[in-house]
């Protein structure tokens, strides 16, 4: 249990940030729009997030060329609409929102992963409910590099889950910020995240079985 306590303490400071509500000034306050200050503000507030937006674009498009196109479009839209950025708000979440809106506008619906109803997603994650695993399997999983396996597993998640994992787990946005980007309630972000984690657990178990690290269990042995 000592390991749990250490992990708990280690993660606390990072996770607390998830409950941070983006600070916004009254909407009447706008960014100063003189040419030089606009350029300076854009340089200081928007461009530092370019690597994050690039990764987010990649996660949306899953194609290097399309990701770069989306990145270009996102920054161009951000530059053209910089006067609407609210000083004091979170520029990264704003840029993610622009990127996501551009992607949804650009991609034909059937080119994105087919939208799955919330109930279907819930049934999927509830049906695959590993959560617990025998301690020997957990030990073996913990002893190997799961980075590539988890990356593939995240890429294979249904879109609704993948985008929450991307924003909260990989980009470390708060639940409130992710909710803002995705235009869904904070509670939905939380529930999708937890269900996504269950699906990732299933994928890791499957990975371990495919790699011969652990024996496959028969239906009668499933928890």
């Amino acid at each position, binding site marked *: 249990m000592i390991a749990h306590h250490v992990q*708990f303490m280690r993660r606390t400071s990072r996770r607390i940030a998830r409950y941070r509500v983006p600070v916004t000034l009254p909407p009447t306050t706008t960014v100063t729009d003189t040419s030089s200050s606009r350029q300076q503000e854009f340089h200081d507030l928007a461009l530092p997030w370019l*690597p994050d937006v690039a990764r987010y674009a990649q996660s949306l498009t899953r194609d290097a060329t399309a990701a770069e196109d989306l990145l270009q479009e996102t920054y161009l839209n951000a530059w053209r609409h910089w006067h609407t950025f609210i000083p004091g708000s979170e520029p990264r979440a704003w840029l993610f929102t622009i990127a996501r809106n551009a992607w949804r506008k650009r991609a034909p619906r059937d080119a994105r992963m087919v939208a799955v109803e919330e109930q279907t997603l819930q049934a999927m994650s509830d049906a695959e409910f590993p959560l617990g695993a025998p301690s020997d399997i*957990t030990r073996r999983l913990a002893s190997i590099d*799961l980075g590539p396996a988890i990356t593939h597993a995240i890429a294979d998640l249904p879109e609704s889950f993948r985008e929450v994992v991307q924003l909260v787990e990989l980009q470390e946005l708060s639940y409130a910020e992710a909710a803002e980007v995705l235009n869904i309630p904070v509670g939905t972000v939380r529930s999708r995240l937890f269900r996504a984690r269950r699906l990732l657990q299933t994928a890791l178990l499957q990975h371990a079985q495919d790699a011969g690290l652990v024996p496959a269990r028969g239906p009668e042995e499933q928890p």
Partner: protein
Amino acid sequence: MSDQRHAAADESKMIDCGTAVRMLWDYLDGNLGPREVEAIQRHVNRCSHCFSHADFGQVVLDAIAQARQSQAVDPAAALRERVIARLRADGYEEP
């Protein structure tokens, strides 16, 4: 307080497996208050079933952290230059 009364007080603080599992992710994320953390830890320390849940939950969170680190590599400087060049064509000048 007698040992018996201590034991009774401990029992009253116990949570069941369903509650522990529902709170598990928040516990591993560090999103619970001290009293809830204590309740979960008390339960997990005594329940091998929930101990394995917590253990396996931590494995997947650690794996996600690995993915986060591997994704953290900055894109090529050339990519940034191409974005800036596109912005320049739209009137942006780097300060």
